[in-house]
């Protein structure tokens, strides 16, 4: 379905992804797992061609969607983003009601009439389980969990073939997280849902396939892949083993890991979030303060 060939992404001179080769299946949940190091989010963003919006980001290599190269100049970008929907880690509500948030993209990019748009919005909101009484609430007033679900609704209203979720349960309370998990399971029955996460138990519960990435100093690379159960129960690579162990045992994994660490060729995951003008992807500010965030680019 989606294939990455020798994908290399650099931002502000720092290499984030280094020659990645990866193939994602047609259906089900594909979990991109790995420690914080910002490569996973970059991967998703490269899939929706974020490099077109941010001139500091350079991409080389191939990304194929059903065999067609999406980095080709002639591939329609907006169509791509409707077929491959990214739900961001920190969704920003559009001014207006929750309902208006969902209909916004439909109004902008489709030829549908008002009734059809409203019907699809309704369906999307029901699917994510946002209570009806909140549909007319201003989106800024929604809670974290509701906002997350709203952002998912925004994306699925466009009926994409592929849904990308960046740390969907991060920061949510267990109940809200559980609802999101349920939603992912439902959505993945008919299409590919790619989930970026560092939560091993999430992978355990809902993952079909898992792709373990590790941030090396020279960039992120694919360490191990396979059916979720296999990889988690029998991790082959030392990095994977360390990670899974840390998730399951906590601090004691590091004790065993000392020997592993000593003999491995990786470096400590580095900070890629620079300040000032160059903000490599995935490192979105924690606070919701307005940051100079213009995505300017030269006119083509």
């Amino acid at each position: 379905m989606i294939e990455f060939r020798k994908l290399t992404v650099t931002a502000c001179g720092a290499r984030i992804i280094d020659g990645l080769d990866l193939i994602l299946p047609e259906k089900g949940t594909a979990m991109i797992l790995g420690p914080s190091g910002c490569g996973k989010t970059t991967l998703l963003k490269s899939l929706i061609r974020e490099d077109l919006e941010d001139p500091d980001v350079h991409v080389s290599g191939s990304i194929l969607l059903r065999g067609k190269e999406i980095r080709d100049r002639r591939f329609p970008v907006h169509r791509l983003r409707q077929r491959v929907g990214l739900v961001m880690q920190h969704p920003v509500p559009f001014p207006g009601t929750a309902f208006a948030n969902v209909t916004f993209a439909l109004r902008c990019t489709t030829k549908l009439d008002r009734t059809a748009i409203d019907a699809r919005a309704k369906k999307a909101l029901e699917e994510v389980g946002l209570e009806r009484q909140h549909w007319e609430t201003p989106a800024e007033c929604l809670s974290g969990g509701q906002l997350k679900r709203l952002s998912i609704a925004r994306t699925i209203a466009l009926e994409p073939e592929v849904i990308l979720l960046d740390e969907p349960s991060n920061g949510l309370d267990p109940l809200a997280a559980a609802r999101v998990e349920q939603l992912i399971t439902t959505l993945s029955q008919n299409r590919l849902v790619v989930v970026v996460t560092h939560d091993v138990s999430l992978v355990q519960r809902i993952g079909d396939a898992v792709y373990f990435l590790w941030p090396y100093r020279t960039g992120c690379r694919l360490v191990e892949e396979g059916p979720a159960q296999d990889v988690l129960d029998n991790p082959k690579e030392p990095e994977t083993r360390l990670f899974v162990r840390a998730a399951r045992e906590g601090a004691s994994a590091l004790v065993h890991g000392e020997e592993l660490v000593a003999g491995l060729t990786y470096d400590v995951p580095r900070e890629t979030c620079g300040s000032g003008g160059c903000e490599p992807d995935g490192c979105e500010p924690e606070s919701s303060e307005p940051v100079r965030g213009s995505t300017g680019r030269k006119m083509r």
Partner: protein
Amino acid sequence: MATPTIEYVAEERTGESRIGWIALGALGVLAIAMIPGVLIYLLVTGSGVLDRTHLPTLFSTEWYPGEEIFGLVPLVLGTLTTSALGLLIAVPVGLGSVIFFRFYSPASITRLGESTLGVLSGLPSVIFGLFGTVWMVPIFGPSLLVAGVVLAMMILPTFAMLTLAAFRQIPKGTMESGAALGLRREQMIGRLALVVTRPRLIAAAGVSLTRALGEALAVEMVCGNVAAIPDGITAPVRTLTTTLVQEFEYATGAHREALHLVALAVVLLAAIGATLAVRMASKQVSS
């Protein structure tokens, strides 16, 4: 749900408007070019007077267009002296009042003071000129003094508001440490507050100076309009700006071109004042 059922516009009409961006960009470039264009226009038109006959007259102390003598000296002097007088009055009074509002007065009076300054700062300068004409000119005659006072009244509100903002932004810790060290109020103001805010005060003074240098009609109402070097504070003067306003309508030929140079001189003086202020302010920061 595997095959999408929505017809997308994106295939035929993307909703992206390249023409739109180009148009906006062109407008933006035009917007940037306007003021430099103004300056170039002034220079080009005024350059007619930079020929051998007229150039030396620019440095004389007589402005006598009838004989094609365009001495800028008295005009520049008039501009500088009136603005300097204005600053001399406005800065101490403005600073003093802000010190009062910030350190001595109860909150209600401070709020009143702020509103007062706010309203005053929005008043068109002619109103101050009117006040000066009716109340001060009969006493002192149209003069450098009245012009200075009118300018002071005009720039004081803005200067005071900028200064107040600067004082407001003094880190709390600074003043608290001073109090903890046992400093008296006067010392805290003089040795701490004023020192910490000095760069911004200088910047505020620079902004005010620029405004004063560029003021035309309010000054024209009260300055006396004699293009000569003033021999006392109650002597009439004329500034670059009042010259423009008085002579523009019927000027022809070299006189007309000279007026363009006068305008350019005003811009230059204002620019120098602003740059000096920025330079002095940043010097304070590093020292």
